[in-house]
């Protein structure tokens, strides 16, 4: 694999090989134990986020230079998306893949044409006072939900950017938000690992529940640490998983362990706290439900560790470590590839299958 991305509009360099390994077919089944890196695409600054578009053509990354960058999965060609005035750690897409949404620490929500040659924002709204920490797109693509440091969750019309609901109730920064797969409701989680379940039809709060294992007040340093740094539903909507940290002994020094709380959606009670067999000093920055029926978490702290958890087992059945420090993770729509955004200014593309000759 070519390790260097091609810059946009730079036709002097030969195209890099595509990320998928040649000779593989769509029938190949994921085998987490065989996970390996197939491409490493570098950018000039540390990365903060990554997401694949729904058609799997691109991986978008946020970077510390306030830009979003688009890597073409065919050849690693790099295209910048310039528009935010701070870091971007929230990226989403319309289900048809035509539109990309980005939320920034500048509080702005931007719309982009996903495959534009020279992307410019199609729409920009001042969505939050302070950081947008996460965004989610409803299963039917009609709604965008955002959350942030103003302790608010907001629901937007994806078609025109108009505000539909402003959901109040959280008493600390709201770290993450996710639509339930049935499209009828929304869940958000804050810094104190308090979850709020919202009815989308009227914007009313339906219930709250918590995951105490993911939160701690550090008496020594007088600092709060916790919350869902990643959030995902299982495919059938029966489980909600929140990734973060547990067993914190030094919040400011990052002496803690990665964990993901699996919550029974119907009862709102903790079903299982997923941890690692060997304690990993990291945070579950990314989390996804694999169509084959297991969770994939990415812990970043001392390395980038992909952890594969069956829903009924606390510890992983497979893992894959990379030496760099991961900051976000995304699962490709084909279920066979994953991306990890690294602090070391690169995105690694992994395949969850055996290597081919």
């Amino acid at each position: 694999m070519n390790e260097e991305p091609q810059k946009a509009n730079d036709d002097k360099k030969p195209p890099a090989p595509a990320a998928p390994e040649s000779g593989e077919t769509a029938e190949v089944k994921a085998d987490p134990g065989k996970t390996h890196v197939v491409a490493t695409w570098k950018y000039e600054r540390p990365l903060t986020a990554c997401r694949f578009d729904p058609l799997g053509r691109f991986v978008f990354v946020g970077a510390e230079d306030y830009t979003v960058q688009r890597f073409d999965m065919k050849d690693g060609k790099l295209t910048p998306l310039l528009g935010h005035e701070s870091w971007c750690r929230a990226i989403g897409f319309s289900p048809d893949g035509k539109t990309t949404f980005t939320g920034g620490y500048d509080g702005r929500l931007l719309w982009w044409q996903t495959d534009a040659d020279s992307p410019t924002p199609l729409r920009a709204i001042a969505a939050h006072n302070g950081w947008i920490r996460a965004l989610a797109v409803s299963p039917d693509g009609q709604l965008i939900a955002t959350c942030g440091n103003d302790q608010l969750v907001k629901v937007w019309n994806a078609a025109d950017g108009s505000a539909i609901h402003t959901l109040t109730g959280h008493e600390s920064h709201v770290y993450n938000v996710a639509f339930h797969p049935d499209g009828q409701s929304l869940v958000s989680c804050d810094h104190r690992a308090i979850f709020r379940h919202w009815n989308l039809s009227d914007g009313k709060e339906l219930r709250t529940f918590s995951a105490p294992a993911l939160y701690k007040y550090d008496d020594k340093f007088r600092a709060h640490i916790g919350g869902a740094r990643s959030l995902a539903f299982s495919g059938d909507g029966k489980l909600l998983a929140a990734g973060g940290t547990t067993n914190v002994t030094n919040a400011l020094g990052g002496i803690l362990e990665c964990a993901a709380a699996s919550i029974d959606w119907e009862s709102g009670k903790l079903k299982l706290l997923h941890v690692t067999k060997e304690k990993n000093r990291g945070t579950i920055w990314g989390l996804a439900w694999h169509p084959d029926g297991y969770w994939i978490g990415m812990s970043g702290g001392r390395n980038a560790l992909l952890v594969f958890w069956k829903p009924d087992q606390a510890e992983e059945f497979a893992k894959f470590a990379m030496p760099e420090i991961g900051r976000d993770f995304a699962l490709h729509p084909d279920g066979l590839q994953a991306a990890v955004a690294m602090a070391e200014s690169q995105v690694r593309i992994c395949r969850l299958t055996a290597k081919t000759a």
Partner: protein
Amino acid sequence: MKCDYACGTAEHGTSRRQFLGGLATGVGALTLGGSDSWIPVAAAEQLKQSQKRILTFFLHGGVSQLESWDPKPNTIWGGPFRSIATSVPDIRISELLPFTAQQMHHLALVRGINTKNSGHGPGQIQMTTGRNPMGAEQPHLGAVAAKALTPPSFSLPGHILIKGGGNSGGPAAYLGPRFAAVTLEDGKAPQHSQLPETVSGEAETRRQEFRRSANDRFAGRRRTADTDAYTLSFDQARDLMARRDVFDASKEPAREQERYGQSEFGQHCLLARRLLEEGVPFVQVNHSNYDTHYENFDYHLEQLGEFDRPFATLVNDLHERGLLADTLIVVMSEMGRTPRINPRYGRDHWGTAWSVCLGGAKVARGAVVGKTSSDGMSVVDREVDHGHLFHTYLQAVGVDTKQEFVIGGRKFPIADPAKGPIAELLA
């Protein structure tokens, strides 16, 4: 009663008036080795009217200069926060300090600090004593201020630490325990300052009468500086117990408590105001913690979010109540934080190029001294260190830092003789 010390020493060293260079010419000749009680009445009144005070905020762990006083948005290590305008044209500070930004015309910034140290312990010693941590222990700024600024017959401690996290301490070293910090743990009144429930008022009166009688009898024959110090400490303790409410911020009107907020730090700021209004010469408020090796930005958002409003409220209150002209304010840490952002979104220890905020007293309002490079890695203009700052703090409240303390016949320079004040900061 005149003290004829049995040991023949004058333990008190240089008088308070002597340190106050600004007042020296107004009160006549100075007397080395004299007791505070020898200050003429007229001079004491003058001192009372212009009572100088120092209020420091110690942001434990090392606040990031990039997230506070020296932001560099959209530079290689600038981080996600933006800068905002302040009440002083051309001064911009981090967006994490919006209330402080409105008080900038009362404040000043030193942006070119290089303490050549990146450790917590050494940094704390440097910044609170003005010396490098080697050799004999040096007195804390609070002890020096208490020694130099405490009015005669002042019944409260001259050096108070309001501890909300962070370290205790505030050693007086050779100045003696009278000037060491009295710590208000979690903002509560000093330990053991309340009469035990088992001791009735009548019994307490009898106890004290007996103690005085025994003291007087002993002092008639064997009076020493030590016995005087003991007597003084008992009297101070009784005064302190009688005025215990001074340490209780809940005695402030509800509206005032609301203005400062219900956070621990907010209430500690209100307590600091209460103490300063009572004339306490030195108050330090700790705020913990900024040692953000991990998720620096989230924690600075949290900690400075708590710091900003109460601090700004206090600055404005001191101004509106006419105290700011005589009160030096300093916001310091033991060091700054690395411009380089580590892979865990943290910033590590950095003493090479960082900032302090100060204001009030003789500090030139709205001044900025020193400059760091565009990447924040080095000082490129007007580099200073803890020694210069220590001189500046004390000279801002009128202490002649070229003087020496004379303790037990030995001379101790008040501040590092090799350094001097940051002259352009002193109006």
